[in-house]
């Protein structure tokens, strides 16, 4: 199935007097990073397949301010947040889904202090409910059936917001062999990207965090390292390259795995 998917913007929807059930907050990585764009497309395909009425902000979306806030630049964060809240409120947005745990955490937990109140879900949570409601069906795991998959918990989904089960329950739907790393769930090791580290070199040390984490993942000899965050995806992909294991192990977002298994 490869017909073009129509991704309406909020402006277009509004112009036709319509409104979406859920706003798809794409995030900067999902909009600009070539690897992350594939995740974005997978999410859009799933939403379309499940006939979810969604829209995006397109050029009206701006950085949530997460990296600025974690780096200590509260001014910049609040400027971004307030501009976004103005846009979201102007469109009377109620529910948001996002593929980025950082956007998810910031909009869900931090925007309320600045007057932005929305129901925010991570894409794995939304996909889980689509499957539960029967709006999305998978015929077995497709190419992942029986494969070893390990899930790397993104800090801002897991420890920060206590969501460990939604991504795992999706992976179970693939009929794959789910293997856990030594440090998983609330003990999961960071990929090294959070707290604005993504945008700077690491401090002097004896190893890169993503190398440490990927090493741990590779010990499980997985066919797939699954993630739920575009930044984790970058870090783990780089880690796999570091160990020259691209032949054996691939890094995918849970949404990509589901989209593939659903033949989208």
């Amino acid at each position, binding site marked *: 199935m490869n017909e073009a*998917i129509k991704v309406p913007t909020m402006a277009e929807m509004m112009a036709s007097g319509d409104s979406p059930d859920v706003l798809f907050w794409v995030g900067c990585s999902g*909009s600009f990073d070539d690897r992350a764009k594939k995740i974005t497309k997978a999410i859009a395909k799933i939403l379309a397949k499940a006939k979810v009425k969604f829209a995006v902000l*397109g050029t009206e979306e701006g950085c949530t301010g997460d990296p600025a806030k974690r780096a200590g630049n509260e001014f910049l964060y609040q*400027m971004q947040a307030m501009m976004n809240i103005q846009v979201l409120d102007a469109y009377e947005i109620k529910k948001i889904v996002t593929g980025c745990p950082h956007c998810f955490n910031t909009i869900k*937990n931090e925007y309320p202090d600045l007057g932005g109140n929305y129901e925010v879900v991570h894409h794995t949570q939304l996909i889980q409910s689509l499957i539960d409601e029967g709006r999305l069906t998978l015929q077995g795991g497709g190419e992942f059936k029986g494969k070893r998959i390990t899930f790397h918990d993104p*800090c801002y989904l897991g420890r920060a917001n206590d969501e460990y089960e939604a991504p795992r329950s999706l992976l179970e739907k693939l009929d794959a062999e789910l293997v856990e790393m030594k440090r998983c769930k609330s003990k999961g090791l960071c990929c090294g990207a959070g707290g604005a580290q993504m945008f700077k070199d690491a401090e002097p040390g004896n190893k890169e*965090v993503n190398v440490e984490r990927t090493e741990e993942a590779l010990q499980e000899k997985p066919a797939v390292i699954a993630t739920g965050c575009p930044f984790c995806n970058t870090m783990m992909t780089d880690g796999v390259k570091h160990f020259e294991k691209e032949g054996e192990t691939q890094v995918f977002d849970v949404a990509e795995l589901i989209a593939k298994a659903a033949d989208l």
Partner: protein
Amino acid sequence: MGIGNIVFIIILLAASAAFGYQASKIRRNILLGKDLDRNDRKKDRWILMIKVALGQSKMVVRPVAGIMHIFIYAGFVIINIEVLEIVIDGIFGTHRAFAFLGGFYDFLIGSFEILAFLVLFSCVVFFTRRNAINIKRFHSKEMKGWPKSDANLILVVEVLLMFAFLSMNSTDYLLQQRGADHYIAAGAYPISSLMTPMFEWMSTDGLIIYERSAWWFHIVGILLFLNYLPISKHFHIILAFPNVFYSKLQPAGKFTNMDRVTDEVKLMMDPTADPFAAPPPTDSDAAPEKFGAKDVQDLTWKNLMDAYSCTECGRCTSNCPANNTGKLLSPRKIMMDTRDRLEEVGKNIDKHGPEYNDGKALLGDYISEEELWACTTCNACTDACPVNINPLEIIVDLRRYLVMEESKNPSELTGMFTNVENNGAPWAFPQADRLKWAEEF
């Protein structure tokens, strides 16, 4: 009332007063921190305290250390009932004042003995583990010197106190059997009765001298230990409870909102605001409050209570991705530095009054920029801490000062800030390209 009782009462009063004095200093130091409301959701707080502090739910993540810690902790709490009896005996010159409880007394003393033995055993294991086995988190940089001796001293003292308690009971038991005056037959001695071969050779007088000495050693030791707590990491046995009670209850990912920044940003974004309007009147000519934290007084009282509650166990650091990969950052050191600096500030106030400025600060003199910038804000440290200490809040508040007051941040981050400001994204992509992905199906 004998001379012994008078001496006892004097020691007891002096030790209690000294402890009260030290505790009041710590209270004052903690209250140097900024206001923060943590009195909401009382019920959740009580439940959390019962689970995490009383129930030690986060200790047992590492089962062996966790269970032995529970032995020591239960021993500490329950043996305090014994201390109550000792205090009564000490004041009134009685012997085993609670003996009238009969069978229940036997049960009490019996369980104290078993606990005392478990404490002794656990302390010996902990001492060996800490010193003879190479466990990384006990040998990091920040654990050299005083922190190391502090940890060992506590274990040695506990072993001595427990041995004094058991040998006191053992000699008492022998004296009861020999029908010595004053030594009424009371209590059950499951452990100390096994120790009698160590003392059987003594004359009755010798036994009495030993029993009395052990009694005095035990109680004076406990009172001295009480006064050692406030200068030691061992203060956690008291502060663990309020510290968990006042935990952050929101999702770990939620960072505090800086309301003062909100006011300014609102003004900037309000098209009707007059940029030249006089700033709102402030009630004094006090220096404007700074953004973020430079020193301990800029942190919240909860951050400072955290620092006094830290037991230097290093679970935070051993889970820290930055520390695990050889970076300078150690969340335990963040807490130890905060406490050390706060103690220093407190001493300055005692000596020179509250206005004194020693020209030093937590940021720079204790914690370096290199440490701060290594943090990935992953919350592994807050998750690992058995008493819900939050090193991350301190790290972020110090970063805020560096960025907003001194514009000191790694240069790549300046680039990221500029991009967010100009392009609405942390990278220099044109905003117009945001929807490019949708054309690529």
